[in-house]
């Protein structure tokens, strides 16, 4: 069947694959024919993702990307890749005047430093094939919008916006493309730590022109576009997926 978005014969590494957008991306990539390598910190939840993948030949590697050992383990065990999805992310909600070095470093470590260094290490170890595609889960937070208490997350994601454009230029000589998806709020568990109430969430949802949050799969489909040969002439791009939020 004709399908320019096919991922058949592609091996794709996805970070933060034990939940949310990462898990949905792993499942959808497997349905598009990819061999998927899932990585995350939580063995039990990661195995759950692995069990839900379509087809065979997938791989799970437990690694904490915030540690040098974790990155080394992942890079060493990783097969040759046609795609990398830098998706792992977290947040701590604090207003600017309550930022501390610890909180800042914690958010930057997961959202900014780890994905950049993982990309570099995979390149140095020649694990990214010529023609490979690197995709970042960025956000409308940072470059496009600000929201109360979101300063650390926004800062970390704005840095990724800059990295994507520069890395896309640097890696064009290797025919490696680098792109980002920029979701608005998606139905995941990223805010389950209690910093907002369910009433806050209900009220926030109404601010979206499409009157709901996105589904993880709806971000996964855009990531698949960037991973597939359909986007072969697209690099350094940011695709906003926000139900129209930033139109207002």
């Amino acid at each position, binding site marked *: 069947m004709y399908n320019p978005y096919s991922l058949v014969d592609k091996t794709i590494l996805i970070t933060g694959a034990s939940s949310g957008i990462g898990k949905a991306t792993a499942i959808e990539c497997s349905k598009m024919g990819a061999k998927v390598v899932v990585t995350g910190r939580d063995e039990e939840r990661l195995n759950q993702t692995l069990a839900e993948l379509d087809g065979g030949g997938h791989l799970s590697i437990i690694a904490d990307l915030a540690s040098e050992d974790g990155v080394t383990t992942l890079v060493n065990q990783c097969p040759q890749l046609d795609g990398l999805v830098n998706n792992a992310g977290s947040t701590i909600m*604090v*207003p600017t005047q309550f930022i501390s070095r610890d909180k800042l470093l914690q958010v930057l470590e997961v959202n900014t430093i780890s994905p950049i260094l993982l990309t570099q290490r995979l390149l140095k170890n020649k694990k990214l094939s010529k023609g490979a595609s690197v995709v970042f889960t960025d956000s409308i937070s940072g470059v496009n919008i600000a929201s109360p208490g979101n300063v650390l997350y926004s800062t970390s994601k704005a840095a990724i916006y800059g990295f994507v454009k520069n890395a896309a230029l640097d890696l064009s000589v290797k025919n490696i493309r680098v792109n980002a998806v920029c979701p608005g709020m998606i139905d995941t568990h990223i805010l389950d730590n*209690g910093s907002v109430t369910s009433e806050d969430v209900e009220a926030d949802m109404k601010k979206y022109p499409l009157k709901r949050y996105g589904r993880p799969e709806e971000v996964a489909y855009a990531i698949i576009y960037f991973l597939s040969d359909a986007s072969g002439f697209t690099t350094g791009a940011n695709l906003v997926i926000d139900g129209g939020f930033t139109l207002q």
Partner: protein
Amino acid sequence: MEIKEFISRFEDVLEDTDISGLTAETNFRELDDWSSLAALSTMAMITDEYDVAITADEMRSTTTFQQLFDLVSSKL
């Protein structure tokens, strides 16, 4: 921890409110500069000053400084 000291910590949270006029029975939700951002600041201030984490739902269950003080005290 005393309630007077607890209320004085809100100087960094409530920029436009005269802290000296606040009492244990003041309903902080009725203050002019109370907002969702002030709620986040309150949660951050409590974590910083008392090393206690309160969730947004717990925060929502309180309306007076006394109730919030009791909530924090119960976790110390």
